[in-house]
């Protein structure tokens, strides 16, 4: 929330959730899928066992649309509360939490149809309604050839910047995903990881939300490690990956650990011909939220240990409960150049389809 005294930020926000309802998707769904929802009241089975964490479930209590519709479901209210208030230059949509086609276990035809409908709805109601908003391609990766068809169908849209993949029991470094990466490269799309329904806890859920939410970075660490050592970035040199909503303070540890392991065990992965930390610096970017409260010194030490301040990008996660306020979440006193990198330029350099910087007011 800005105040009158605060300068607009020219933010590139790498995690904003637009909210869809099944009703919204009806005009974009074909038969017989539409019938299952309208007549049979089908909804995707969701598994999270927890009571929801904050005052208004997973959302900011003040983000509910004034007429009572769910947070994130109304573009004008999002413009008022977020995009105009903060001064967003770009917002990247990462939506699709419920339904979430990529996390369906079974009935992949429905998952594929939902992903198609979702992408069409996202383009028409968000990307083409506000020039600041850019989108993520949703796919049902459970059917990779259908997923590739969907990437071919919408991936060339000028405002689609990444593909979100499911976090599940096929790790992304597996050759299973190569056709998807090939399609991504073809359309200048990056790969995005944002946790959703799937677990981070040995295939199940921990007993408490606080455990699950604490451990989200572990799922990110697994994917980073897997993608690097399986040689994905060697086979697809244009490919990059944005790790969304896992934070970034685990990265120094992971880089050091991977480098140390590589010195000992390089023989097992001879297709890796440079230090893992160099691959991470070149191919992977991390969003800030949810930020831990850190002093300026602690914050800067993290970048020093990463050997770069080019690979972290600010995200709000609006309208979710653990939203990070770009005016308040970062330590005070960061220098202007670092702020500019975190708030916009690192994301701009990461996504090739984002526009050049506009002149400041």
């Amino acid at each position, binding site marked *: 929330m800005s105040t009158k005294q605060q300068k607009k930020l020219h933010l590139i926000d790498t995690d904003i959730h637009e909210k869809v309802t099944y009703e919204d998707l009806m005009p974009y769904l074909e038969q017989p899928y539409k019938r299952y929802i309208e007549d049979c009241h089908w909804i995707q089975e969701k598994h999270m066992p927890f009571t929801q964490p*904050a*005052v*208004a479930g997973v959302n*900011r*209590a003040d983000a509910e649309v004034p007429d009572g519709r769910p947070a994130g479901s109304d573009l004008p209210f999002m413009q008022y509360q977020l995009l105009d208030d903060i001064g967003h230059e770009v917002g990247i949509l990462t939506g699709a939490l419920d339904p979430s086609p990529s996390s369906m276990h079974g009935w992949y035809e429905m998952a594929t149809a939902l992903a198609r409908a979702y992408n069409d709805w996202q383009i028409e109601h968000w990307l083409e309604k506000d020039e600041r908003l850019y989108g993520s391609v949703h796919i049902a990766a459970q059917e990779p050839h259908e997923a590739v068809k969907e990437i071919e169908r919408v991936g060339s849209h000028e405002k689609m910047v990444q593909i979100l993949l499911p976090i599940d029991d096929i790790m992304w470094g597996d050759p299973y995903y190569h056709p998807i990466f090939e399609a991504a490269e073809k359309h200048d799309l990056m790969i995005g990881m944002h946790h959703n329904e799937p677990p981070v806890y040995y295939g199940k859920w921990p007993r408490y939300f606080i455990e699950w939410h604490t451990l989200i970075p572990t799922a990110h660490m697994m994917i980073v490690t897997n993608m690097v050592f399986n040689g994905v970035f060697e086979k697809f040199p244009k490919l990059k990956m944005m790790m969304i909503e896992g934070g970034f303070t685990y990265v120094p540890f992971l880089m050091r650990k991977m480098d140390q392991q590589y010195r000992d065990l390089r023989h097992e992965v001879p297709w890796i011909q440079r230090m893992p930390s160099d691959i991470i610096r070149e191919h992977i970017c991390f969003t800030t939220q949810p930020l831990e409260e850190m002093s300026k010194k602690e914050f800067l030490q993290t970048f020093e240990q990463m050997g770069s301040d080019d690979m972290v990008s600010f995200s709000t996660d609006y309208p979710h409960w*653990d*939203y*990070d306020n770009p005016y*308040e979440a970062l330590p005070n006193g960061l220098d202007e150049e670092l702020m500019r990198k975190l708030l916009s330029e690192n994301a701009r350099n990461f996504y090739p389809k984002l526009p050049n910087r506009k002149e400041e007011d």
Partner: protein
Amino acid sequence: MEEVVCSKEDLNPGEMMESTFGRHSIVVCRASDGHYYAFLNRCIHQGAPLSKGKICGAPEPTDTLGEYNFDREGDILRCPWHGREFDIRNEGRMLANEKFKIKNFNVMEKNEQVIVYK
């Protein structure tokens, strides 16, 4: 400096409202004891407007694993964003760490009015 921030009848126990004190946006809360409390309307964490949160109770600390003893309904103010819990009747101190508190103001009740002063 003193200022009328609301009427006593504006709030029932367990309710809150936004008001102003000088140039400050404040939140006036009426706790379960029927008394009025006032705080700066800004969370100390990331600046969320507390008046958009919720007045509720909270599970009491317990020595028994797995036990929930939900108590103090009407005495806890939770932030609308991250849900941090602040104790209305204990100077707005954070339940998770009492060293931290939201800024509180002096309040008196006079006739039918609630007055904040310093």
